[in-house]
């Protein structure tokens, strides 16, 4: 790629900001991927702390067990690139105020856990911030069946989706599929920011 084009992309990414709701298996991997790729600002919201059983799929380390997830994630991102602006909010997203942390971002990533909260988040954010694209994910549990995953587009909602996957209460959450789908989300974010790669 020529230097001029590459510089233009770098500038565009640096000026871009992405909101991430949830810093578990999806959110932590999306955040690290976007930071490595040069996104200028990340807004990350999560209420949880790092637990040992998170390490099977979430982007945390043994020495971060017990830490607040968003703080641990910010630390990790800055070990990769300390020029990324990382705004963190350590609280649980609640009905009627779910949009609040995400008013000044270009794209929102839904990386929440329970189907109930996922649905509530998508409904509320798409209603209150109708011009901001939302990249969600549904059907992350299990392993294999990569070919069942699709991107389902509904207006400004982009769902990384496997409709045949089981609920995570009935199937395991494990690195290969979780990280695959997280990076599928990150890849859609890139496409939304830069336009289709032609």
């Amino acid at each position: 790629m020529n230097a001029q084009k590459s510089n233009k992309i770098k500038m565009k990414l640096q000026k871009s900001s992405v909101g991430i709701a949830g810093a578990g298996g999806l959110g932590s991997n999306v955040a690290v991927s976007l930071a490595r790729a040069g996104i200028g600002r990340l807004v990350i919201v999560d209420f949880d702390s790092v637990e040992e059983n998170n390490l099977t799929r979430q982007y945390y380390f043994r020495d971060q067990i017990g830490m607040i997830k968003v703080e641990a994630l910010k630390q990790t991102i800055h070990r990769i690139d300390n020029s990324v602006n990382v705004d963190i909010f350590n609280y649980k997203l609640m009905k009627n105020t779910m949009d609040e942390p995400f008013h000044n971002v270009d794209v929102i990533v839904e990386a929440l856990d329970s189907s109930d909260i996922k649905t509530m988040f998508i409904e509320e954010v798409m209603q209150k911030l109708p011009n901001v694209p939302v990249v969600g994910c549904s059907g992350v549990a299990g392993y294999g069946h990569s070919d069942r995953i699709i991107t389902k587009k509904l207006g400004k909602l982009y769902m990384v989706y496997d409709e045949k996957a089981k609920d995570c209460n009935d199937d395991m959450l494990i690195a290969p599929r979780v990280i695959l789908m997280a990076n599928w989300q990150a890849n859609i974010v890139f496409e939304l920011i830069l336009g289709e790669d032609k």
Partner: protein
Amino acid sequence: MIIVNGKNVDFVENETISGLLKRMKYVFPNVVVKINGELVKRTDFLGTIVPDKSEVSVIHMISGG
């Protein structure tokens, strides 16, 4: 005729979204529904009639993240 997730489905007069989901055997508790591009909230499923020739998209939200 209406289209649900890309498939042709018979139109039923005065059918609500809840009725359509039941007819399609979409049993997941949490779904995101769009009719002709408009997102419909879950609280409106019982009161929203699906018009003829609608294009309906239904996404199951499955826990895990």
